């Protein structure tokens, strides 16, 4: 990797003060460190968020589970509160990468990176979560703006993610056999505001399928989406799966997610 200055602030305010220029934030580093090692990024400064205690932790606040941005996947997977309130979220976290990744990788890092095959964006979008930053709160529907792109500003740091507790939810992931990222992952949630179906891995970014949501609104069962066809247009196509195969898997995984949600 190239040389850079390293900072490890103790508070979010300190961290924000370090930003600017070519500075980059380091969360769990599961994407960023390999990128640096391959010399694919050349930041002049790295601001390590690992020393900010206020960014970690899991709390149930009313009808929501609030998880700090620096909370590791392993902690979410092992959390009794999460398992009780939103078991699908605990399951999703427990299926990310491998134990090493789960012990280092963070919720905030995953969300900010917005890898089109990452698991967490599906949970945020599927549950209608909101992303809290040092400046504002952004709804998941507005947060993920494109491949590896988000609504985050230059001097903005994710602090927490608020997941409303759904009536029921399920996540089904079809893993890429090599990377174990989602070739297709579907998060389905039945919420007071309606059913939400969010898909990761299949397209250039996480997206919802309105037709499935509508079909499930009146009949929350796997059979309800039999009539919904998923178009392959615009879906990813690579050596691991064609767009057509991914489109097919969206339906298969959606049905499995619905079944996992008790539908």
């Amino acid at each position, binding site marked *: *990797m*190239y*040389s850079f200055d390293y900072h490890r602030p103790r508070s979010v305010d300190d961290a924000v003060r370090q930003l600017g220029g070519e500075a980059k934030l380091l969360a769990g580093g599961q994407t960023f460190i390999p990128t640096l090692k*391959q*010399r694919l990024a050349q930041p002049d400064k790295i601001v390590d968020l690992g020393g900010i205690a206020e960014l970690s932790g899991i709390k149930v606040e009313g009808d929501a589970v609030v998880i700090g941005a620096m909370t590791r996947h392993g902690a979410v997977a092992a959390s009794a509160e999460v398992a009780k309130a939103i078991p699908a979220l605990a399951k999703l976290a427990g299926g990310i990468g491998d134990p090493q990744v789960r012990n280092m990788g963070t919720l905030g890092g995953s969300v900010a990176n917005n890898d089109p095959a990452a698991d967490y964006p599906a949970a945020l979008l599927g549950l209608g979560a909101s992303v809290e930053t040092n400046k504002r709160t952004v709804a998941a529907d507005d947060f993920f703006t494109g491949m590896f792109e988000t609504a985050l500003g230059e001097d903005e740091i994710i602090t927490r993610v608020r997941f409303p507790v759904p009536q029921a939810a399920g996540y089904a992931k*079809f893993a*890429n*056999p*090599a*990377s174990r*990222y989602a070739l297709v992952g579907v998060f389905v949630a039945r919420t007071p505001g309606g059913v939400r179906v969010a898909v990761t891995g299949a397209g250039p970014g996480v997206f919802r399928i309105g037709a499935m949501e509508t079909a499930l609104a009146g009949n929350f069962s796997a059979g309800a989406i039999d009539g919904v066809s998923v178009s392959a247009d615009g879906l990813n196509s690579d*050596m*691991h*799966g*064609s767009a057509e*195969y991914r489109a*097919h*898997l969206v339906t*298969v995984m959606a049905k499995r997610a619905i079944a996992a949600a008790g539908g």
Partner: protein
Amino acid sequence: MTDTGIGASVRRKEDRRFTTGKGRYTDDIHRPGQAIGYFLRSPHAHANIKGIDTTAAKAAPGVVAVLTGADYAADGFGNPICGWTVTGKNGEGHIAPPHPTIAVDKVRQVGDAVALIVAETLDKAKDAAELVEVDYEELPAVVNIADALASGAPQIHAEAPGNLCFDWDIGDKAATEKAFSAAAHVTTLELVNNRLVPNAMEPRAAIGEYDSGSEEITLYTTSQNPHVARLVISAFVGLAPENKLRVIAPDVGGGFGSKIFIYPDEIAVAWAARKLDRPVKWTAERSESFLTDAHGRDHITKAELATDKDGRILGLRVATLANFGAYLSTFATAVPTYLYATLLSGQYAIPTIYAEVKGGFTNTSPVDAYRGAGRPEATYVVERLMERAARDLGIDPAEFRRRNFIGTDQFPYQTPVILNYDIGDYGASLDKALEMIDYGNFAGRRAASERNGKHRGIGFAAYIEACGIAPSAAVGSLGAGVGLWESAQVRFNPTGSVTVFTGSHSHGQGHETTFAQLICDRLGVPFESIEIVHGDTKEVPFGMGTYGSRSLAVGGTAIAKACTKIVDKGKKIAAHLMEAAVDDIEYKSGVFKVAGTDRQTTMAEVAFAAYVPHNFPEGVEPGLNESAFYDPLNFTFPAGTHIAEVEVDPATGTVDIVDWVAVDDFGNVINPMIVEGQVHGGIAQGIGQALLEGCVYDRETGQLLSGSYMDYAMPRADDLPNFRVGLTNTPCTHNELGVKGCGEAGAIAAPAALMNAITDAIGSEIDMPATQEKVWRAVQSRRMAAE
């Protein structure tokens, strides 16, 4: 059997250091004053080099040297070679274009080295590498062997028109054609044997060191055969004569064939150390391993099997295209010829066989031996064809195989393709495997799966392999440039401990344990008093290394022969000590006895007397230290039956391996636990090939698309079933241990067994790797055809 002798599942003595981080691999070694080497590699698959400007790089901080192919050529040293001459149909040897140690005017694969930057640190070397300006003129690339051999393909080497290396055949063409014309049925299959990246856990690494006082070069490197590396680097590259070149292969973390070869990188590192008179270390990064380790397999084959009306095989006809990559690696030419086509008889009495192989060049990493080397490709062809033929003929696949097995009364059996099998009992392994898998109840299990919406399939592979490579005269007559004997030295120390020097090399196989068990058994020495030394040309007299499952059959036999010499000499000493005639001395398990008496002395006492010869027989030299060379009389022929059972999820194409039975005949077994571990590892690699691993180059640009673990799927524990392993035993007839070799069997048998199970489940033929989408599409098209 003692608890540490032959037949005991002794825990591996080397594992303590490996599991506690005390292994000493090449990258763990730091030489005084060591600089770091970094290769600048071609980003293009095929390009002319119009110029290289190293001025800025040389001036960069911390840079010791920036060395190019022109510098190497100017020093007049040689380049890597291919050591096996294959003579084609035209009576001429294969075409061997030069393989520049560092590219000079052309690059032919992504990853070709164009400069070696030596600097104080790796980061400084990488910084400098970014300052090297290479002016490339890109050329069209070709990566697929069928494309490369087609007319109009980009020409890769001027010396090899049409990218053809050789067009070779074996067997009786006329007799085979006659057999086919008389056939009641002909089964035809077109198969791709997918290219694999070896992925040893430890990447290749090298440290070159030069002593200008003694003019000696030392090369620490990740080698499976340090003496062969020394021979090639001395005789063909010419960096130093053999007596001034020491090659040390310390602990090596896996090879699978990829560390047999003498690569340009290690040569360049040794050259740089000599040129700069300073130790230079290079360790490949994982992405470099993907690009530059010699890959495996990569065949396209058409195979046909002729049978009569009773399901008896009349003949076999095979045509294969083999991809060698951009350059010929050390033993590349032997793999798709003498290690492949000679195995096409499988376990079967096939009256006539004819095989043709065309080998050629592409803009990809070189292809050479990878676990099994030719034999997995042969087994894959034969066993998929057998399964297909059985289905076509409506004969149970087990019965079809049994009907065509070489009978136990037919050994030694001369195949139509050179090899002469000494012994085997193929029916015994098949029967045991059928029993273990409960074949009789398969139909019930299949019905149960169908009720759960899954397609169940069962697949066989009745494989054979030739290992224990190899009788020197035989391989010499077939074009090998080396002899394939092995050496051993067994040295007693005065206090009764033993140091064994073996020319074979352990890089995961457990030689320190297995060979110690052999010594324990033969010489009665306590297990913990035995030290096995390998991997250093200055310590071990000679050796040909470890590959082709040869270490025990060849290297172990050499040790046994040295033990016999020790015992013979020990008898003379013991006879003198006990004042008896040598002919009256009986030896067993470390004890010398005077026949018919209770007088005895031990091996330890004899060893002490040999080194403190105060009372010693006249005419006998002091010391107890014997060497032996062993050149095998034939290959050994491990064989067996693997049966895989799978469930396919038609909704996704996911294959779940629900059961696996492996019954292998390895002859006598020294350490059953190690053998079982080798079988497990081999099957895992074979499953990887069949289900997951596909090395993919972009057909237009020649870029390696599967260049990391993000895209290249290695098998993991959760991809694998619990293996159920059984053994049968027909001891090898021509080595005194009766052993055969077990290192490659799993990788040889597994791909065919698994693909036969999958094709049984889905009802159509597909190629490896059987990715989920491929399986799903096959299920879909069958369903659509049925509707």
